[in-house]
């Protein structure tokens, strides 16, 4: 497994040297960005068992922070870093408050609340015209270090790997293990002597900050930001990516991001030939239903349980041989 990941990573690092297709690199950059976003969402959904429908708000905060900083001030690295700090601060505060609410609101009530909160941010972005230019959004210039697409591609790849490793360690830490216990049985975790709320808030804050950073990278890759970053579509993308890839596995979130973004790109291209594909969201709906019905564990989950079964069969055969 580790070998496969290393090979894929090495391949992705070296790809720009042997292949030149601007579109492909833009697509791959998007995949890396959405991988970070999907992994942050999986931390809530897959590891802590918190269903949020408002993850787009953190993404949007990141996207608008960088957009506004670059537009209002000079597009330099210094202001870029300031914008990142701003994103971290804002998302940390918002996700802390949202995490606090999990105390009172369970499952679907919490999901509805996050949905309406992110709706609130959407309205804010629409109405605060002096700052956000309303629905149309605005373009902005990026620091010269990021103008070269290949450099930015490497940066996003590096950050994706960093976030992956960070979250892998995080979810396997004693604290991360308690989060998974909460997903399994909240009441039991409490009676083992853990303050469940502290863990939910920690998960919420880590997840929110990472989603904000994904938002920053997204806006920089487009050099444009509009209210779409706050819409439900962004949250739905994250939901689809984690569920298709495999809930509760970080690799699953990355694979899911890859599949959704590729399918997105491919279906949009097909739409030029067949009008039906203009409604590509319908296909996502069908895929989603099929996955939930037949592969509830997602791609990674299904694969790993398959290989586990094989191992088991193998072991049984061995025993039979020995007995025979």
């Amino acid at each position, binding site marked *: 497994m580790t070998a496969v990941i290393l090979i894929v990573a090495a391949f992705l690092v070296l790809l720009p040297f042997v292949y030149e297709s601007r579109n492909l690199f833009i697509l791959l950059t998007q995949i890396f960005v959405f991988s970070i976003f999907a992994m942050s969402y999986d931390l809530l959904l897959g590891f802590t068992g918190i269903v949020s429908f408002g993850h787009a708000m953190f993404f949007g905060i990141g996207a608008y922070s960088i957009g506004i900083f670059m537009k209002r001030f000079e597009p330099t690295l210094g202001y870029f870093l300031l914008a990142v700090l701003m994103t971290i601060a804002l998302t940390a505060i918002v996700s802390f408050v949202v995490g606090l609410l999990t105390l009172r609101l369970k499952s679907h009530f919490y999901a509805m609340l996050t949905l309406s909160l992110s709706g609130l941010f959407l309205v804010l972005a629409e109405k605060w015209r002096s700052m956000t230019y309303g629905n149309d959004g605005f373009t902005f210039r990026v620091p010269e270090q990021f103008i070269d697409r290949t450099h930015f591609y490497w940066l996003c790849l590096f950050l994706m790997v960093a976030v992956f490793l960070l979250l892998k*360690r*995080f979810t*396997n*830490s*004693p*604290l*991360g*293990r*308690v989060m*998974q*216990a909460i997903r*399994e*049985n909240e*009441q*039991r*975790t*409490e*009676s*083992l*002597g*853990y*303050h*469940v709320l*502290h863990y939910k808030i*920690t998960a919420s804050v880590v997840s929110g900050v990472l989603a904000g950073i994904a938002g920053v990278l997204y806006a920089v890759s487009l050099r444009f930001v509009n209210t779409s970053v706050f819409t439900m579509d962004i949250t739905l993308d994250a939901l689809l990516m984690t569920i298709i890839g495999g809930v509760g596995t970080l690799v699953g979130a990355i694979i899911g991001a890859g599949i959704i973004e590729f399918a997105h790109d491919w279906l949009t291209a097909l739409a030029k030939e067949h009008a039906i594909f203009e409604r590509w969201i319908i296909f996502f709906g069908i895929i989603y239903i099929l996955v939930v019905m037949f592969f509830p564990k997602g791609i990674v989950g299904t694969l790993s349980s398959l290989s586990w079964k094989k191992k088991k069969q193998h072991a049984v055969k061995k025993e039979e041989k020995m007995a025979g």
Partner: protein
Amino acid sequence: MSTLIETKDLSITFGGHTAVDSVSVSVPEKHFKSIIGPNGAGKTTFFNLLSGQLMPTKGHIYFRGRDITKLTSTNRTRAGIGRSFQITNVFPNLTVLENVRLAVQSQAGIRYQMLLHYKKYRQFEEKALEWLKLVLLDDKKDSLASNLAHGEKRKLEIAMLLALETEVLLLDEPTAGMSLEEVPAILEVIKKIKEQGNRTIILIEHKMDMILDLSDSVMVLFNGRLLADGTPEEIMKNETVQSAYLGGQFDE
């Protein structure tokens, strides 16, 4: 010996039904107390009040003389009151070892460490394995808790409680649903803990013969009320208890 847990006038009402009605008992330190009573007598509800799963409508609970009526279940566990559940209550999609390891981790007070790998705390796993050995479940350590048979889940439940190493153990029908062959092993475990002599144990049990020789005292609940509280011999002789519970007025 000094009193460890004391309840005063403890009551809880669900709608119009009073499930536990003015129960006042005290349990001395290092004591083994059993609670018996017919189904629906309020035994488990009484436990839920002691462990903080439910808040009483009326009355108080004292632990070492401190009023803990308002403490959450988390804080009661930390204070030293651990419990097992009658309806099996484990982490279904985690391995058996991980279930116990989480309890060991909590006992060790490692709660917010987020940068080190959990395997760095090897001693937790070793400790968890010891507890599993004690309840004869170590051969199942790598299977998911949801794949265990009912009796095995009960054993896991007990291992998780023991791993918390709390002063007070609240055991809610530890042998319920176990096959007959498994019961002696669990009784053996409970006896061992009792013999170590540093824990206070409160036990709900249906199997009278099992508790009579283990218990220092027995209390009888009936319709939420405390019917009798005394040594096993006294309870056996008590006429009210006999007519209410043992005398066959209620078919168990």
